[in-house]
């Protein structure tokens, strides 16, 4: 038996033993998603049990080095773990910006002490991280941020505000872009700072969206003291780290497109048949039939492209700036998907709450409205087009 086969056997039996039965049910509601964090540590339920077990094993971050709490697995082994989890229908034990965004840049840019201190907490879901990038005045022009950190000898003093901070009202710590040198050119005076959201001077105000309540917050910092060893990388080198982190974020958002965000659990053709009628097994309205087919074809093309990029990456050609394409097309496609559903479901998909609409219909209304943010957050579609034109096609400024 090859090493991989025996690894698969061990993974199988470990998972069989460790994954609670309730964690093998499909994720159905937002509440089913576990984000970890300090508050979670006080709970005593299957979600926490599953997180503790998988986290101790390091398999929430299977390929991170074992010395930082990761699984220390090879890519092949990690793929086996993933396959075996999928086979038994095991839920992800943890969803976290620590894993998808912060961790990778800490591994690349943090010093040894920082890695030892922060990475194991991420692996085990002990700290819920949030991202302090955007500011009210600086949208697509992220680097024009104004939030500043002054060197006060033994600490930095942070003043300013952030916007679009997802789950700032629930998170424990923040990774934050701050201006440490106001005199430097705008890309050079930025640093990458970590700090505790429980620090005095941090206040948070949630943002209501057109789709209703949201995880987004506006976050205000007034004379927040941050120890100096919580800066990552060199002073003033925050922009480089920020850009790398954005690449991780974009692949994450671009890949999210489908299945997430609720909406009808049935296929789009089934929705079409229900709301527009069916004649001889076909969607009755030919215009809707064509739109559904067009969407499904495009979806198929996009998923082929995602798989091709993954295969190319495995074969040694990472996508680089081409990854902007996934953010761009994935989010535009998700918007199109919801517009299509709205047009199929007609006035039944335009209810806000209460009588006259099914839960599924009301969810679709909200999901549709929420999808407008997709092509803005994490870098607008226009920014992605600029990146593609400049860095992939080489068109001059």
């Amino acid at each position, binding site marked *: 038996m090859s090493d991989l086969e025996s690894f698969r056997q061990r993974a199988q039996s470990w998972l069989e033993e460790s994954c609670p039965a309730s964690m093998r049910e499909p994720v159905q509601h937002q509440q089913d998603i576990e984000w970890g964090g300090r508050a979670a540590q006080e709970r005593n339920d299957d979600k926490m049990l599953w997180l503790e077990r998988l986290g101790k094993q390091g398999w929430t971050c299977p390929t991170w080095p074992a010395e930082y709490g990761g699984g220390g697995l090879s890519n092949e082994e990690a793929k086996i773990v993933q396959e075996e989890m999928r086979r038994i229908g095991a839920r992800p034990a943890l969803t976290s910006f620590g894993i998808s965004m912060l961790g990778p840049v800490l591994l690349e840019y943090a010093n040894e002490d920082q890695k030892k201190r922060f990475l194991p907490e991420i692996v085990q879901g002990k700290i819920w991280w949030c991202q302090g990038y955007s500011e009210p005045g600086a949208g697509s022009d992220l680097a024009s941020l104004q939030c500043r950190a002054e060197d006060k000898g033994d600490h930095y003093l942070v003043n300013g505000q952030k916007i679009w901070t997802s789950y700032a009202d629930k998170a424990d710590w923040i990774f934050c872009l701050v201006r440490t040198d106001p005199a430097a050119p705008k890309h050079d005076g930025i640093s990458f700072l970590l700090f505790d959201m429980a620090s005095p001077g941090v206040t948070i105000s949630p943002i209501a969206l*057109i789709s*209703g309540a949201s995880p987004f917050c506006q976050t205000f910092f007034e004379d927040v003291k941050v120890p100096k060893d919580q800066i990552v990388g060199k002073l003033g080198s925050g922009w480089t780290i920020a850009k790398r982190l954005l690449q991780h974020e974009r692949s994450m958002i671009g890949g999210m497109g489908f299945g997430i965000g609720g909406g009808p659990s049935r296929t789009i053709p089934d929705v079409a048949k229900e709301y527009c009628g069916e004649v001889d097994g076909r969607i009755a309205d030919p215009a809707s039939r064509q739109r559904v087919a067009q969407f499904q074809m495009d979806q198929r093309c996009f998923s082929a492209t995602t798989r091709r990029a993954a295969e190319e990456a495995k074969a040694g050609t990472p996508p680089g700036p081409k990854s902007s394409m996934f953010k761009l097309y994935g989010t535009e496609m998700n918007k199109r998907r919801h517009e299509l559903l709205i047009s199929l479901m007609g*006035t039944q998909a335009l*209810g*806000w709450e*209460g009588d*006259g609409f099914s839960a599924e219909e009301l969810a679709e209304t909200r999901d549709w*409205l929420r999808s407008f943010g997709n092509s*803005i957050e994490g870098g607008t579609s226009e920014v992605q087009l600029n990146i593609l034109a400049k860095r992939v096609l080489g068109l001059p400024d």
Partner: protein
Amino acid sequence: MALVLTEEQELLKQTAREFIQEKSPVSELRRLRDARDPTGLDRGLWKEMAELGWAGVLYPEEYGGMDLGYVELGQIFEECGRALVAQPLLSTVVLAGGCVLEGGNETQKKDVLTAVAAGERLLALAHQEGAHHDPHAIATRAESKPDGYELNGRKTFVLDGHIADQIVVVARTSGENGDRDGLTLFLVDPDTAGLEITRTLMVDGRNSSLVELDRAVVSRTSVIGEVGRGANILDRVLDRATVALSAEMLGTLSEAFDKTVDYLKTREQFGQVIGTFQALKHRAAQMFVEIELTRSIVLEALSAIDADDSDTSLLASCAKARCNDAIFMIGNEAIQMYGGIGVTDEEDIGLFLKRARVTQLTLGNSAWHLGRFATLQGY
């Protein structure tokens, strides 16, 4: 058919704009929504509008109306669209009131139109049944009984249904679901036993209801027009309402565009206002062209109604399909150009987007009107 407004029409439009700016700006819709106002509109303000003549623009002077035309009414709709005014112009004046105007007998007209023109009575048309506009897809049955008609069925998306003082119900006295023949219009009291009205909260904050009819019995005098020939009235009214709604959409999309152009001129990114970026400029210019085309076809359709032109149905479909497509494009572009602030509830542009989609699906989406246009043109 004139495609420029007369001085009188311009004046009417200007007056409407000023009145609305003062009495019913966008914040009024937000207030009604946030207060979860049970009526969903301000009836006192409606009375004021009626005093300006808006409720009776179309009606003969003998019923207290102004006896003007759709070009005039269209200007009021357009200005209401600009400020997302939540008032029963469409439901009461054009849809249900239109049924009485087009098909009612003298007694009905005198009673209903006079009260509507005075701003004292609200009406609703209970027509649509599924999730989509489809005028002759009526399954609701009206069976002749000794004491009148018994109605059974379920109506969706009845605009202003839960506050209407009278409801025009479209039901089938003969024929099959989908037939044009066999439809009959009934003027029904909302208190009728067996009639159940449920308010449905829509994404645009405007009024809509479910109307359920379970052995609801109405008198023979409640019939509007001829039994079984209701489609003759209904089709005319729907064409007119489609054009009026198009005029409202023209106002909504024009205002959303104007707001967006202003935003492009003030919002700074990368050290310059974003209106300097050529990609956004070109998109804005394309929207401008769409709006110009939309304005022309809406005006032509309004004029065609007043001239009782044989192309009215054709132009109604042209106008609505064009408005649907333009409001879709402009609503979505507006949100995208506003960026993050555009998707917050705090910023008004989101209210325009929500209203946009509801209007698109009211009285026929673009595919439906394209199909009808082709049929009318003989292909």
